[in-house]
C-alpha cells in the first residue's frame, strides 16, 4: 500500500480565483432567491416544477459523485486491491458532490425551513419514492464524510481517533455501497411516477436499473476522467494500468446498459420516435451517440491501454450518461398545455457556483490533505 500525502503548492492561483468569482456570482443569485422567492430567480414553472437544480445538480451531480460508490464496490466488496489508490480521490469527489447536491436541494425546495419534516415519523410517507431518495441521500452524505474522515484524521495526526474509527469503518463502507445502490435506482423510479408526461423514449419499467447502471458507469468514468486530468494538471504520473482494468469493468457495465436500453426502446416499438427530427428525439440520439462512442472506444483492449483514448471514452460516457439522466428529467418530460422551460441566468449561475465550490474544495483538499498516493509531488500547474 502506498503512502498518501498532500500535493502541496499554492492554493490561491489563477484558476482558483476564477472559480471563486463564479461562487461569488452564484452567491448573489442565491441571496436573491431567498429574499424574493424562487420565481424571481428561476424559470421553473407549474409545468416544469423541476429545473436544472434537480436535473443537473442532484440527478447528474450525484451520479458524478458516484466515484466513491463505484470504487468502494470494486475495492472492498469485490476486493480488488489494485483499485485502492483510486478510492480516496473518488471519495473526495463524492464528498463534495453529494454534500453540494444537498445544498442544491435546500436552495431548490420552496419551504426549506421545514425540510426536517422528512425525518419526523408522523410526516413520513413510506410509500413515497422521494422520501426514500431523500433519506438515502441524506444518510449517504453522512456516510461519505465518515468514509473520508481517515484522510482528515491522518493530516491532523489524530492517531487514537483514527484507530477507533477504523474499527467501525467496515459498516460505513458497506453502507456506502448499499445506500447509493438504493437511491440511484430510486432516482429512476421517481420519474416513473410522471406517467404519460415522460416521453416513451425514456419511460420504461427498467428506469431503476438503468439509473443504477448509469450511476456505476458515470462513477467509473469520473474516476478515469479525474485521474487523468489530475495527472496532467498536477504533473503526476498517470495511473494507466489500473485505469485500463477499470475501463474493462466499465465496458462490460456499459454493454449491459446499452443492450437493455436499446432493446427496451425497440421492444416497446418506440424506436421510430427517435428519428422524427424533433428536439426531443435529437437529444435521444445525442445521448446514445456519446454512449455508443464510449462503448466502441472501450471495446478494444488496445484503446483501454491508451491514456488519451481512455480520457476520450470517459468524457463520452460522462456526457452521454449525464445526458441520459438529464433527458429523463427535463427533455423527455412534457406536461402538455404548451409549457416550456429553459434555465434562467440565475439558475445557471447558481449551478456554476455549486460546481465551482466542488472544484475549489477538490483543489484545496488535494493540496492540503493526503489524497493522492503519488510518488514525488512536483510543482503543480493547477
Amino acid at each position: 500500500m502506498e503512502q498518501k500525502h498532500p500535493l502541496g503548492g499554492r492554493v490561491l492561483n489563477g484558476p482558483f480565483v476564477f472559480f471563486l468569482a463564479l461562487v461569488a456570482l452564484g452567491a448573489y443569485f442565491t441571496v436573491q432567491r431567498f429574499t424574493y422567492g424562487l420565481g424571481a430567480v428561476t424559470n421553473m414553472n407549474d409545468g416544469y416544477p423541476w429545473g436544472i437544480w434537480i436535473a443537473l445538480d442532484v440527478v447528474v451531480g450525484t451520479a458524478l459523485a458516484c466515484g466513491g460508490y463505484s470504487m468502494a464496490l470494486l475495492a472492498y466488496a469485490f476486493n480488488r486491491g489494485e483499485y485502492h489508490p483510486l478510492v480516496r480521490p473518488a471519495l473526495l469527489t463524492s464528498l463534495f458532490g453529494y454534500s453540494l447536491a444537498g445544498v442544491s436541494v435546500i436552495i431548490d425546495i420552496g419551504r426549506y425551513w421545514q425540510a426536517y419534516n422528512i425525518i419526523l415519523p408522523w410526516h413520513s410517507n413510506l410509500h413515497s419514492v422521494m422520501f426514500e431518495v431523500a433519506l438515502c441521500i441524506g444518510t449517504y452524505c453522512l456516510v461519505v464524510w465518515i468514509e473520508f474522515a481517515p484522510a482528515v484524521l491522518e493530516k491532523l495526526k489524530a492517531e487514537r481517533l483514527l484507530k477507533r474509527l477504523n474499527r467501525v469503518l467496515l459498516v460505513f463502507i458497506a453502507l456506502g455501497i448499499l445506500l447509493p445502490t438504493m437511491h440511484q435506482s430510486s432516482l429512476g423510479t421517481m420519474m416513473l411516477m410522471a406517467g404519460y408526461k415522460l416521453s416513451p423514449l425514456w419511460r420504461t419499467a427498467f428506469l431503476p436499473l438503468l439509473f443504477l447502471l448509469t450511476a456505476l458507469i458515470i462513477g467509473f468514468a469520473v474516476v478515469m476522467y479525474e485521474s487523468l486530468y489530475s495527472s496532467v494538471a498536477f504533473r503526476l504520473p498517470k495511473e494507466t494500468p489500473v485505469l485500463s482494468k477499470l475501463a474493462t469493468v466499465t465496458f462490460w457495465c456499459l454493454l449491459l446498459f446499452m443492450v437493455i436500453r436499446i432493446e427496451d426502446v425497440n421492444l416497446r416499438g418506440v424506436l421510430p420516435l427517435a428519428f422524427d427530427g424533433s428536439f426531443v428525439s435529437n437529444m435521444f440520439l445525442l445521448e446514445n451517440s456519446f454512449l455508443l462512442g464510449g462503448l466502441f472506444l472501450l471495446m478494444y483492449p488496445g484503446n483501454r491501454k491508451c491514456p488519451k483514448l481512455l480520457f476520450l471514452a470517459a468524457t463520452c460516457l460522462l456526457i452521454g450518461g449525464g445526458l441520459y439522466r438529464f433527458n429523463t428529467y427535463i427533455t423527455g418530460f412534457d406536461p402538455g398545455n404548451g409549457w416550456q422551460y429553459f434555465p434562467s441566468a440565475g439558475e445557471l449561475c447558481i449551478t456554476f457556483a455549486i460546481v465551482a465550490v466542488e472544484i475549489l474544495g477538490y483543489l484545496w483538499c488535494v493540496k492540503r490533505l493526503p489524497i493522492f498516493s503519488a510518488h514525488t509531488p512536483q510543482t503543480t500547474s493547477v
Partner: protein
Amino acid sequence: MKIPRRDFLKLSAGGGLLLATVGPTAALASTEKKALPPEAVGILYDSTLCVGCQACMSACKVANKMPIETDDTYKRSDTPQDLSAKTLNIIKRYQDGNGTAKDQEKDGYAFIKRQCMHCLDPSCVSACPVSALRKDAKNGIVSYNKDACIGCRYCQIACPFNIPKFQWESTTPEIVKCQLCNHLLKEGKYAACCTACPTGASLYGPMEMLIAEAKRRLRLEPGVYADFPLNRIGTDSPPRTTSHKVGQYIQHIYGENEVGGTQNLMLAGVSFSKLGLPDLPDEAFVRLADGIQYAIYKGMAYPLALLGALIYMIRKGENNGEQIDKG
C-alpha cells in the same frame, strides 16, 4: 480463496440485477381498484349544461379568499388563463372553426371546468414525502397541509392532471389547489362553485348518487327536455331542478375509471381530449412505481440482506490479509 468467492459474487450480482429486471413485471400483478371512501362527496360537471357564466369561478375566489389574476392595472376583471396559485377553478372554452354550435366538435364551442379531481388513488398523496397532501378517509377530499410541506414539488410532477400549482412569487410558497371547500363543511356549506352554478352544470353530492345521476343522463334521449338537479343532491330536501334540452353526450363518464377513478366526474358533448382532459389508463401511474419499490425492497428486507452480504464480503477481504485502505 479468490475463485469460489468470485463466483459467489458474480452470482449475487447477477441475481441482484435479475431481480431488478424481473421486479417490474412482478409489480404489474396487483391492480385492484380503490374503493370509494364511505362518505365520499364530489362534483359532477356537465359540460352540456354549462353556459360559461363563470359564476363558479367568482364564488370560488370569494369562498377561498383568493386574489384575482389580471394584467390590467385597474384590475377590472379576473382573467386567469389556467389554474394557478391564484385560481383554484377555471372555466375554459373549446372552439373549433366558426365556433357557433354548442357542444359540437366541428365548428362548435364547449366549456370545461378544471379543478382538482380528488382522485381515489391520488398520485400527489403517494408522491409527497412528508404527507402534506392527504386524502380524507371519510369524504375523500384531498387536502393540503402547509405545515408539513417542504416545497419539493414532486406532487406537481406526479399529478396526471397537472393540478397542484405553486406560489413561485412568494418567499414562503405553498402548493395551491382546490380542496372542495372543506373549510366550509363545518358551517354546513358545500363547494362554492356548486352553490353558485345557475344551470346545474356543477352538481355537488355523495359519489354514488352523482355516478347514478351521470348514468341517468347518458341514458336520456338527446333533443328532448329533461329535468336536471341544481346545486346539490343527497340532502334531506329534494333538490331544485331546472329543465334543459338534453345534449348529445359522449357516452363516457370521465373520472369513473381514469387513474383509478376520481371524485370529480365529467360529462361532455365534445371528446374529452379536445377539452384538455388527458387520455388516461385505469391504473394510476403511481401503482407501477410503488410496485417496483415493493419488489426491489420488500419492506427493507432486501436492503438489509444486501447490507449483511456486503459486510461479510468486506470483512472476508480484510481477514484475508488484504488491508482495507483506510480511506
